[in-house]
């Protein structure tokens, strides 16, 4: 292996200096973009409906720190009513949820009831990248006035916030053993602890929000691979199942897209749809929209694939019946996925309001599936240049 290499090692000091400079250059050239990504702020404009923006740590101080503590946008109606919590970027490499809640933050006005919106639940994950998986660092959504730039995050919080990983992650409080990685996965650390590992603190604070504010329904917006059995669906525990089923049937009949209901498994712990239901009075719903970008057998991991969901390998696999969703040349465009998240959320809110009229939530200015497919998500984003400075938030 390391036989002497006489010629090249004739001047070891010189060789070492050259190599060191070369690697230092690579370290800087590769490290700076990663550093910039981690510190990049996405620009969000608080729309007319936003009445307050607070920190999630207001409900549990344990998660203070700029890379773990997400903003909570509150949209309070003039008339009291029910309360809903919307969470996106639980997995920050599944961005349709983030795009959907940003439309809500910038456009929706609540008339009755209250919306709490956490656009980046796992802040650290949204500032992390998936090493080895070659994602782009950012993606741009075209708008009527320019474009909005989003960070492409990943599923797990960064080790810079949560290090080391355990040998196995033991779920609190059910003691189920999970993969070591799941200690950084905010869809395995529910219901969490105020002083546990960093991501348990995040989910605990969200639980506290739901318990203290008596939130009626909670949404956790995700994306799932087309080859993953649980995709394009609403995952709901028993107590949310009826509303979920009604919503799924209604969107199919009225808006023409599929989204079936999957029961939340009893014995797979740490997931929002399981633990929010078990550890609070809130009704949880986890929404999955397909995201071909995350599938293994795809072409290059480009922004284009992320946004249009078109891939020749997946198309071929669809023909061999290996996918769990319908798939054709049209792919799965981001606007369609954002539209599904919007419409399913709105429909669940409507069904809940119908069932419990005293806790109804009524809102305006939320586009639906057909609107998003027609106009694109970018049509609904506001130009920060035209917004009052105090309405601009860097996430």
């Amino acid at each position, binding site marked *: *292996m390391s036989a002497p290499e006489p010629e090249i090692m004739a001047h070891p000091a010189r060789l070492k200096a050259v190599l060191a400079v070369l690697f230092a250059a*690579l*370290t800087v*050239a*590769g*490290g700076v*973009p*990663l550093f910039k990504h981690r510190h990049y702020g996405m620009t969000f404009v608080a729309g007319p409906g936003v009445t307050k923006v607070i920190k999630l740590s207001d409900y549990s101080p344990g998660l203070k720190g700029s890379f773990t503590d997400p903003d909570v946008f509150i949209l309070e109606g003039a008339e009291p009513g029910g309360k809903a919590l919307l969470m996106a970027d639980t997995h920050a490499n599944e961005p349709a949820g983030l795009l959907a809640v940003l439309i809500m933050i910038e456009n929706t006005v609540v008339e009755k009831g209250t919306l709490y919106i956490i656009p980046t639940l796992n802040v650290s994950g949204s500032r992390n*990248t998936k*090493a*080895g*998986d*070659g994602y*782009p*660092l950012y993606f741009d959504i075209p708008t009527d006035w320019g474009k909005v730039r989003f960070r492409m995050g990943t599923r797990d919080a960064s*080790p810079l916030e949560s*290090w*080391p*990983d*355990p*040998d*196995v992650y*033991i779920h*609190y*409080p059910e*003691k*189920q*053993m*999970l*993969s*070591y*990685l*799941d*200690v950084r996965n905010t869809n395995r650390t529910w219901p969490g*602890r105020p002083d*546990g*590992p960093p991501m348990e603190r995040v989910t605990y604070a969200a639980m506290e929000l739901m318990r203290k504010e008596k939130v009626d329904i909670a949404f956790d917006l995700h994306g799932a*691979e087309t*080859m*993953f*059995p649980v995709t394009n669906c609403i995952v709901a525990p028993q107590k949310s199942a009826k509303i979920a089923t009604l919503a799924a049937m209604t969107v199919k009949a009225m808006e023409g897209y599929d989204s079936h209901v999957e029961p939340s498994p009893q014995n*797979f712990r740490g997931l929002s749809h399981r633990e929010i239901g078990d550890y609070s009075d809130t009704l949880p719903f986890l929404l999955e929209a397909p995201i071909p970008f995350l*599938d*293994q*057998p*795809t*072409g*290059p*991991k*480009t922004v284009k694939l992320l946004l249009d969901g078109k*891939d*020749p*390998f997946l198309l*071929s*696999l669809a023909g*061999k019946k*290996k996918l*769990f969703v319908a798939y054709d040349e049209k792919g799965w465009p981001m606007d369609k996925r954002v539209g599904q998240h919007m419409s399913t959320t709105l429909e669940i809110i409507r069904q809940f309001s119908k069932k419990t009229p005293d806790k109804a939530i009524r809102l305006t200015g939320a586009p639906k599936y057909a609107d998003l497919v027609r106009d694109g998500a970018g049509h609904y984003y506001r130009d920060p240049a035209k917004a009052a400075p105090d309405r601009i938030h860097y996430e």
Partner: protein
Amino acid sequence: MTLQIGAILLLMVAAYAVASFKKLSVELSILAAAVAGGLGGAFLKTPPIAELPRHLVEGMFPYLDVMLVFSTATIFMALVNESGGVNYVVRGAIRLFYNVRVVALLVLMIIILIPGALTGAGSVSLLVVGAPVALALKALGIPERKVAAILFIVAGLAAAAPPVNIWAMILCAGTAIPYVGFTYTLGIPVLILGTFTILWFGLKKEGGMDKAAALAALPPAPPGMNGWRVLMPFLVFFGLIIANRIWPFATPIFGLPLEFTAAALTAWLVSPKRLHVLKLARETMQRLLPLLATMIVVGMLQQIMTATGVRGMISYSVIIIPLVLLFISLAVIIPVSEGVLTYGAAAILGIPLIWFFDSIGLHATVAIAGLSILWPLGDGLPPTALIGRLSVMVSEYKGTYWSFLRQTWLPWLVITITGILMVVYSAKLAFLVRWSM
């Protein structure tokens, strides 16, 4: 698109071949393949050239924590070895069991299994206990070629053994399946296959050494070494692990690298002879360098393959193989992919395979266990041949690499059949997972 990705793949293979031809090391050849793939991709802007340094640097990170485990574990075991602990145990085994050959062989097998089972790396087994165990096996009258074969197969099984199996961990993390239920699902096959291997190679005494000569051939344990001093560092290590398991909510997360570091400090403190810790640590890092660098370049290769679509195309090609053919071809696909990519293979091929198996009603956990006893075989295959090369080195076998590899054919075959059957009949073996919970 297939054509373009195919061209990038060819470019990578060509770069690898040229680098190997120029007598560059395996690690540098993989690096060459990664850089070539990145440059090829840049032509098609997948990814754009401006992103290439970022991709290369980001690709160095997937196995950072594994590298810390390797480093701290190997330094720990080097300290135990240097203090005479391993010699003490090996001598004890020969003294007590020389005349009960089966027991002696089994004790030696367990000694190889433990470091790999704890760290998930067969190489750690070989680096830390390989040399004394090889001596003991030779003292038992087993020829060098067979000693190398035993070390290779058992070290591979050690890597697959619970509690830490890195292939299974990568697959579980990538498929959102909890890393639980492997204790018996992996433990039982590993013990059976290990026992078979060591008895197959070792039961027949081929040399003519008696017990006294065998003990004389082994290096002496230093004066003052005793069972307690050998045990202490391991007690600290297991104590920390077990404390985390028994009181998970009262103890902080230590993580394997810190647990090994604590055990290493204990080994240093209780050693009967003065240890030159810094020198030992430095030499250990030097010995580990090719292994650590392999983790780095494989991560880079993985990142480039994914960004360019090569990884997707390969996993597509595997998924479209008809089922029966797929089961049979696992015998080739799994070890060969490991030989080229080491752990990267689990991510590239394993994740879509497990999703696919899951969707046709196989039991994912058992299927993962089945695949992960096949993967270590690939560590004997070039280009990387990490464990194979180490086995030859540690056993001081002087023949050609192929003559060593040929020697392993029967355990290789038995392990292959076991692994494939575990995948095919995974649903029927689900009880192993229930026992393990």
